[in-house]
């Protein structure tokens, strides 16, 4: 009996322990996967199995399943969502593109894969993130860099090598092919192209076409050969052809759009010298926040002289600002090392913008890197904002703000004595000393005895003279 109770306790504790083991994602491990039919998930078995291996809890559902919901009572049911049903005109229980946008706004991450048969649902969803898919039925075509499929050449199955050099998203091994030859393995892609907003800093075109890639519709002629349909005067071609793009929102949620569901499929994973598996792994790790997630763990500012944070600062005070930054990679937080973390002191416009220095430490177990800066506050008083606004391509945003008051000097805070005023100080002092001296003389001075005697003798003579004068009158 005791043994049973012990076993039961151990099982309970282990289940609690297992329940509390965190997934490798820094935000959660609940993933919703929507596929056209449940059977079609086997085409993506390698991709989905890799997610399970990484600790994600997958909830597989058909897109037509009306019981699918993203949130309940305002709480997200999932941390991530993968849409692999490009032709589905609606998702789940009446989910609209706006529902997925709301999901992203609430912090959920999204991975969307479409194909040439994409529906208006996906087109509208893409437009919310600056992705404009080509018309339905279009393909990304390349007559120069294509691959064989089933022993037949298919110019719509392109071998794309134009990867964006964003180390935060694509690891250097992917860009160099792992062989150190600076030539990435081709990513096999068969699907639709999209236009992207090149100047949108939130959007990163990860995989784009090469110079010979273009977007066009195809048709089959009477001989059964594939032909390209008529193109516009200025067709979408070259680097403007977006194949896979990712988007990071201002609230650090991440979204990826791929114009090809085949990119994630087992046949292309298994091709010889295929870069699909490492590429898909890299972008899925980024989208699901398993890497390149930045956070600020602590920040402080204080006077250099006292080492304490005052209620308010005074103009021209010397202060120290420190901030601790970490980056999430490989299942844990590491110190984030960079040389471009900047501090700003802002009152409407920045008065000060300086680059902070990283504090060198020998502590190998540290999870955060400390950046510090010695700053002399401006000689302007007012309400300032101390800000570290760190936004870098591929990394999550860090925006730390503190509102502080900078007061002017008190009436007794200014320099009291000026070298140019020495004559005036001397004058005041002379007046004080002169008054004291005069007071002392008046109190203590006594006339000398000889002078007093002569005055006493002179007095009767003066009296006689006065009498004589009065008699003569």
């Amino acid at each position, binding site marked *: 009996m005791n043994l049973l109770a012990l076993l039961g306790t151990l099982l309970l504790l282990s289940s609690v322990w297992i329940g509390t083991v965190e997934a490798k994602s820094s935000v959660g491990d609940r993933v919703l996967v929507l596929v056209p039919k449940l059977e079609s998930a086997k085409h993506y078995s390698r991709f989905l199995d890799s997610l399970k291996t990484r600790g994600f809890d997958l909830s597989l559902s058909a897109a037509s399943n009306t019981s699918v919901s993203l949130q309940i009572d305002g709480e997200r049911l999932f941390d991530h969502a993968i849409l692999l049903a490009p032709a589905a005109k609606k998702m789940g229980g009446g989910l609209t593109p706006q529902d997925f946008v709301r999901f992203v706004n609430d912090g959920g991450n999204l991975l969307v894969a479409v194909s040439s048969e994409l529906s208006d649902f996906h087109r509208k969803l893409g437009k919310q993130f600056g992705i404009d898919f080509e018309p339905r039925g279009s393909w990304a075509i390349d007559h*120069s860099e294509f691959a064989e499929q089933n022993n037949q050449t298919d110019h719509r199955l392109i071998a794309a090598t134009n990867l964006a050099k964003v180390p935060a998203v694509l690891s250097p091994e992917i860009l160099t092919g792992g062989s150190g030859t600076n030539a990435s393995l081709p990513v096999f892609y068969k699907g639709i192209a999209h236009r992207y907003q090149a100047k949108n800093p939130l959007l990163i075109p990860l995989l784009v076409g090469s110079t010979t890639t273009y977007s066009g519709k195809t048709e089959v002629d009477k001989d059964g050969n594939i032909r390209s349909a008529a*193109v516009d005067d200025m067709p979408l071609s070259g680097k403007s052809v977006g194949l896979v793009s990712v988007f990071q929102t201002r609230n650090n949620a991440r979204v990826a759009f791929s114009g090809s569901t085949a990119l994630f499929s087992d046949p292309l994973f298994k091709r010889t010298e295929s870069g699909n598996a490492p590429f898909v792994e890299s972008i899925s790790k980024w989208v699901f926040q398993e890497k390149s997630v930045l956070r600020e763990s602590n920040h402080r500012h204080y006077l250099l002289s006292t080492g304490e944070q005052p209620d308010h600062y005074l103009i021209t005070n010397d202060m120290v600002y420190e901030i601790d930054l970490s980056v999430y990679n490989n299942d844990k937080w590491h110190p984030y090392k960079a040389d471009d973390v900047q501090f700003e002191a802002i009152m409407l416009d920045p008065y000060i913008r300086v680059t902070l220095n990283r504090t060198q430490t020998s502590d190998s177990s540290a999870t955060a890197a400390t950046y510090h800066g010695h700053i002399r506050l401006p000689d302007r008083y007012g309400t300032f904002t101390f800000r570290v606004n760190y936004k870098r391509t591929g990394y999550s945003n860090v925006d730390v703000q503190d509102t502080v008051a900078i007061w002017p000097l008190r009436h007794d805070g200014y320099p009291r004595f000026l070298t140019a005023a020495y004559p005036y100080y*001397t004058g005041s002092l002379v007046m004080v000393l002169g008054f004291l001296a005069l007071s002392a003389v008046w109190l203590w001075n006594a006339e000398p005895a000889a002078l007093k005697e002569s005055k006493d003798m002179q007095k009767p003579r003066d009296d006689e003279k006065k009498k004589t004068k009065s008699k003569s009158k």
Partner: protein
Amino acid sequence: MKPFSLVKIAAALCVLASTCIAAISTSNVVVKVMERTGDKLFEKKLAYPKTFDNGPTITAATPFSVSFDASSDRTGKALALDQAFVSLRNMETGDEMAFAAKMGKNGSYRMDVTRKQFRSHLGAMPGKHMVSLVLGSFDEGGLFYELGEVQVAGKKRIGNADVLYGPRDEIHHRFAEPQRMPNVLLSLVFAGLVAAPLLALVGVWVRMGVNMSNLAKEPVGSSALMVLVAAYMALAVAYWIGVRLLPMLAYVLALALPTYLVGQYALSRRIQLGL
């Protein structure tokens, strides 16, 4: 390079049907820039893979055209291309733009950059551009042929309206210059001049025989009065240095009564003693 890497690259090439062997040929490639009046500013006929040098400058007023014929290497016949683009790539920024060439009745292809196209697209990215033919066919493969460089006229946009995702320029606050002061020596000289009359007064007093004989006759009251008067002067100096009004007023009030009483005593004693 390691042998295994070579094998990997060779294997990659084997699965790619790339441009190693292109089955498309071009001929009668003509690059032309015309004046508005119809005069030829620039015309160059090219044969693959030659390029032209000293490329012209293209403006909205000088139509730019490229014409060419395409044929299949296998059959030798004219080819209906699936992709017939003339690509312009900005050598500075890497931005690319492609214009589709249309097939004419005689099977030749021709691309013209209209004034509207120039103003809406090319004019926004002036500079040196590489002109290339990008041809492709589902049956024959692709051909990429760089023709030469042209200069696209236009004004570059000043400033960068793009949002910066990177370190920005540092801003160091410029503090107000400290007030300029005259030389310290000058101040000291004038301070000496100000102090001189007092010193002269003391000297005159000494010559006149000023003394402190009455102190011995009445030491208590007069000394106390002098101390209190000196205390008032010290308070004035302390306020002048420290500028703390309320503590100074408190001390002034505290000293007022003793000073009055001591003064009354001292002065009455002087009268009594006939000083």
